Structures are given as structure tokens and as C-alpha cells.
């Protein structure tokens, strides 16, 4: 579905992604996991064509993905939904306006737009009376729901999420995690999720790609990463994120 072949990309001489090969299978959720600066967000931005690789190739359904505004690139982007931290909602448009922006631009009829908006509200558990609110009037969790709905508006083949829950407090975060998992399962789309939280990655994704310094360190399920680390960095990363609750629970089990 999505593939990177020998892709490198530097910023001001510093390589963010170096000679990366990656295949993202269709219909599954893949998490790109790693510490800040490991290149995971760069991969996502290369996938949707916000960045051009310095070398190598990015492909979507076999066609090259490139940055720029050529018609074929624009058409490609419309087949992908993109959600970023804190939503990236346009402050001058209300929730409905944000969701319907592209559909209206493409000339959808009002009834069709409304039908789709209603269906998405139901899917994401977003209250219909919130549609008239502006992003500044919505809570962080609601903003992410609107952002997700906006990404899903044209029923894209691929959904790309960059730290979608990064700015939320823990309660809302866990609630939204559950909703996301349900939505991914219901839609069965190809999903690529960027996160630095191993728990979130394990909860939402079938497969995790652990990255470090622009390279893939290990790829597999959460269980594989925890039980069969292929490099010392994997164990360190897993250990660093073990929560105090887990060790407490582990301690109780031993007693």
C-alpha cells in the first residue's frame, strides 16, 4: 500500500531519516514508535507528500509520492487523511466548516455533506450540537474528534495520525484511545500512527515499528518488542516507559 525505498531526508545537514526501507501493509494499523527526533514524524510527512525525500522513493499504490502541488499529488493527498497533534483545525471555521471544507470545495451537494457529517459524528461520538462551535470553543478531545472526522470526510484509503493524543490529559486520552481503536476496527483502513508512547502503540496498532536516529531498530508486535528485543535499545526503550503502576502490580504479583 505504502512503501519507502532507500529514503533519506536531512534538515540543515542533519539526517532525520537515513536510507529507510519500509512497507506499510493495507487494512492494518501500524505504529511508528520512538523517542523525539527519531524521524517518525518525518516518515509520516514523507508519506503524505509534505516533504520531498533527498534520495530514495516513496510510493502509494505503486505511484510516486512527491511534495508540491501537481494535480496528481493533490489527488493522492485527497486519498489520505491526516491528523496532527492539537488537531490543526482552522480557527476561522466552525467544526462543521472544518469537516466540510474540502467536500464543499469539490462541489458536494449540501445534503450529501450533511449526511456524511452526521455519520462521522456518530462514528466518533461527537455531539451534533458541537458542530457550530469554533475550534477555540472546543475542548482538546473534541478538537481531535473534529480533526479525525475532517480526515475521514472523503472516506480516504489511508489515515495518517501524528501524535494525535499528544496534547491531551490522561483521562481524555484514554477515552479517545478507546474511540480510536473502535473506529480503526470499524473502518478497516490502512492506518499509520506516530507516537512516542509504547502503551498507546500497543493498544492501537497491530504492528509497531520502533525507530531510532532515522533507522528502524525492530519491527513486530508489542509482545515481540517486550519479550524478544533485538537490540539493547529496545529493552531500554521498553523499560523507560514501564509505568509505576505496572511495577506496583508486578510487585503485588510476586508477593
Amino acid at each position: 500500500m505504502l512503501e519507502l525505498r532507500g529514503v533519506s531526508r536531512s534538515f540543515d545537514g542533519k539526517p532525520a531519516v537515513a536510507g529507510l526501507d519500509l512497507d506499510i501493509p493495507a487494512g492494518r494499523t501500524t505504529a511508528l514508535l520512538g523517542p523525539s527526533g527519531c524521524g517518525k514524524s518525518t516518515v509520516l510527512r514523507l508519506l503524505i507528500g509534505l516533504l520531498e525525500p533527498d534520495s530514495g522513493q516513496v510510493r502509494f499504490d505503486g505511484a510516486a509520492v512527491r511534495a508540491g502541488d501537481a494535480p496528481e499529488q493533490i489527488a493522492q493527498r485527497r486519498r489520505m487523511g491526516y491528523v496532527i497533534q492539537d488537531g490543526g483545525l482552522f480557527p476561522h471555521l466552525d467544526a462543521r466548516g472544518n469537516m466540510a471544507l474540502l467536500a464543499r470545495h469539490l462541489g458536494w451537494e449540501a445534503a450529501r455533506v450533511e449526511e456524511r457529517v452526521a455519520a462521522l459524528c456518530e462514528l466518533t461520538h461527537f455531539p451534533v450540537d458541537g458542530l457550530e462551535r469554533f475550534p477555540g470553543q472546543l475542548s482538546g478531545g473534541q478538537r481531535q474528534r473534529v480533526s479525525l472526522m475532517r480526515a475521514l470526510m472523503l472516506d480516504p484509503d489511508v489515515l495518517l495520525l501524528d501524535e494525535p493524543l499528544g496534547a491531551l490529559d490522561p483521562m481524555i486520552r484514554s477515552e479517545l484511545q478507546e474511540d480510536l481503536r473502535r473506529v480503526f476496527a470499524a473502518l478497516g483502513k490502512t492506518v499509520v500512527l506516530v507516537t512516542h508512547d509504547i502503551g498507546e502503540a500497543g493498544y492501537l496498532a497491530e504492528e509497531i515499528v520502533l525507530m531510532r536516529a532515522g533507522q528502524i531498530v525492530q519491527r513486530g508486535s508489542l509482545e515481540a518488542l517486550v519479550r524478544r528485543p533485538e537490540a539493547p535499545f529496545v529493552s531500554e526503550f521498553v523499560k523507560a516507559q514501564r509505568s509505576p503502576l505496572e511495577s506496583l502490580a508486578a510487585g503485588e504479583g510476586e508477593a
Partner: protein
Amino acid sequence: MRRGLRFAVGLVFLVAPSAGAAEPEAVTVGSKKFTESVILGEVAAQLAEAAGAQAKHRRELGGTRILWNALRGGELDVYPEYTGTLRGELFAGRELADAAALDAALAEEGIRASRPLGFNNTYVLGMVEARAEALGVRTISDLVRHPDLRFGFTDEFMKRGEGWPSLRREYRLPQGNVRGLDHDISYRGLDSGELDVIDLYSTDAEIDYYGLRALEDDRGHFPRYDAVFLWRADLEARAPAVVAALRGLEGRIPEAGMVAMNARAKIGGDAEGVIASEFVAATLGLTTDPHEAGLAERLLTTTLEHLRLVAISLLAAILVAIPLGILAARHAALAQPILGTVGVIQTIPALALLVLLMPLLAPLRSFGISSLGDPPAILALFLYSLLPIVRNTYAGLHDTSPSLRESAAALGLEPRARLRLIELPMASRTILAGVKTAAVINVGFATLGALVGAGGYGQPILSGIRLDDVGLILEGAVPAALLALAVQGVFELAERRLVPLGLRHDADH
């Protein structure tokens, strides 16, 4: 939006030259922005009308250059000038010894001059009559005998070639107590006894008012400033009766008569039109219409003129400046050239810009665009309005958060759609603030339009300054201030309609 368009179309009709049969020959008279010139201009206009022409008087134009260029360019047909100004300023550097040489020089420019009208408005030195009498001072030479006299001269007189430095040499004047000061202050200094001798013009109204004695220039130091009418050579064929009427004034205005008329206007507060009409009746036995409008009519006229200047120039500036701002924000290489250029335009002094624009507009005359009146004023206002709008458009677009710009791109919107649907609406508050600034500045600057004959609130202000008439100044200044406030109010209302709800301060955050 549609209403705005209709307004714009209406404006175009307002400025379009009114079509129709022009039976009587149109004659445009100009005058400089001092009282004597305005009275002479009024006299010429009324005589032209009495001679069967359709006369128009563009009064109080900004300076000799503006009138001279307008006359040569055909924007004006007639204006009063002084031989000294022709020789010393307009034909500076050429030796034009006598009237024939001057006429020949004028003819090269396609211009004719009348014989002198009678009075010589040159520099004179003035003293309070009683004091001059007591000291026995009648001529400038007499001053040599009183070395302790205190002199107060205008800055212009202190610097000019024919002014104090050469006068002192010519007459070997011994006085050391010489101060440079403003004209108005020097009269008061003379009146209060702090000064003994000041420079003035031989037809100044104050000569009468303060009871001054003009000292005779017994060595003939000051050049002659004989008043004459200048007209375009083609006027003699187009309106021979008008030329004949103007020639009828040759030698008919003595110095005392001009002083009295100036005094009536400057000190008595009489309207120039009325003074001119009475003069024409008394001197030539003709009855003319003084054309003096009442306050309400004047206000209506100046308001319409002012609004027209502001509306057209601002509309044009918005249409040009927003795309320029977009261009600057889109292409980093263009940002500095565009912002730099509009910034530099802003630093050109208004009068200089107006004078610079007039010759630039002159070639457009064949397309019906005049280089006097509205076109140069509107062009100048347009240029001054660019900076705030360009800069704010640029800033508004440039400051859009990069993550939102990326969101728009990732969504799959084309660049144009991103600009129209995302970037411009998000910058709308900043852009509108720029337009508001431009509009308020524009309303103020538009008062300078009067300097090139575009009318507006600047007209009563110019007259008021000239006549030292606070009421007249307020007649222009108060409506201008009110209009600025109204414009500000209109834009605040517009902000409510144009700035998206989600971007307003009153939205919950």
C-alpha cells in the same frame, strides 16, 4: 459585496467627464494660494464669463510650478503671474532684459502675457508711519543715518539673492540687529515696538491695517514684480472676447487699489468673489456674478469632492495592494523589493509627490485625463494608501501558523484554494486593520488635494490659513476629523461582517 460593486460603478460615473454639447467656450482660470492671486483669478474668471465663456476658477493651487506646468499643459487657460517671478524663477538663468524679450520667451512656450495690470508687488521695507515720520525716514537710503534700528526679516528674505545680503551691500546699511522670523510674528513685533523695520510686499493688506510706511527703494534694488495675466496662445483663437476683456485690465489696478482689495479679504473677511465683482463693476462698469456659495452649499461641495478622492484612491489601493501583499508573502525574493518600494513612496513629501506626478500625467491628456485636479490627487492618495495595506497583507499571510498551512496542504487543497479558503480569511483581521489605517490616513491626506485643485476639505483649510480665518480652517478641519472618525466606524462595522466569527476577540477561547 454587490453593494460595494455598485458603489464603485457609481464612482466611475462621478468622475467620468460629463458628455454633452459645450456651446460656450470653456475657460479655466487658476490662482496661487495667496489672497491677491485668488482675487485676480476671480476677476479673470468673472470677466471671462461676462465675455460669454464658461469660466471655471481653480483657486489656491499649490505653487508657481503647478500653475506654470498646468498652463503649458493646457489644464489652465489663464492665471495671474508676476514679471519678477517669470524672470527670476520660471526663466531663471536667462537674460530677459525687457518686455519684448520676456514676451518672446513666453511665446516659445505657447504663452502670451498682458501688459502690466498696474501695480508692482515687490519687496519693500516697512516702518510704522509715526516712527518713520519722527525719524524722517522716507527712503531706504535714509536708514543709513539710524544704525540702531532693529530689523526683523522673513527667512525667505534673509536668504534670497535680492534679499537682505545684497540689499545691505547696495545701500551700505550699518544695522547689526537683524533677526529672522515668521511673517505674522514680524507684523506683531512691529506693532508692539520690538522691531523698527520689517520686509513686506508692497500690496500687503497689513500696510493699511497697521498703518505702515513703505520705504522707497530709491536705488532700484528690488526687481519689479508687475502683475500680468498669462494665457495660452490658443485662447486668442478660441475665445478672443475673453482675451480682449483681460487686456482691458492693463494698467487699471493701482497699488493702492490692490492693497485695499487685499485688506478687504484678509482683514475685512469679505469673499474674494464679491470683492472681484465690485472691482469689475467700479472699474469696467460690468455686472458679474460673484459665485459665492453659502456654508451648507460649500460643505456639500467639499464633502462630495473629499469623498470622491478618498473612495476612488482607497478602492484602487485595495485592489492593487492586497495582490502585492500576497505576492510578497508568496515569493520571498519579491518581499523586500515590494515592501521597500511602497515604503519609499510613503517618505516622499506630499507636495513634492503632487508636483512630480503632474508631468507624469501630462501625456495622458489625450485620453481625457487631466494633470490637474482629481487625477494627480487621487494618484498620490492611492500611492500613500499602498503601504499599510501591502504591509498588513504580507504580515497577516506571513504570520499564519506553518502547521495550519501544512494542514491545508495535507488536506489536498490547491494553492489557490488554500489562499482563498484558509490563508486570506485567517489574515482578514490584519488586512482589514491595514485598510482601516490607509483609509484614515487617506482622509487626512486628501486635504492636500486642494493644492492641485481637487477641492475637498483642504480648500477651506487653505483659504483659512491664507486669510488667518480660524472659522474657515475649522470648516475644513472639523468635517475632515468627523469623516476620519466615521471611516473608522464603518471599518469597525465591516470587521464584524468580514472577519470570521472564530477569529474575533469576543469568541470564547
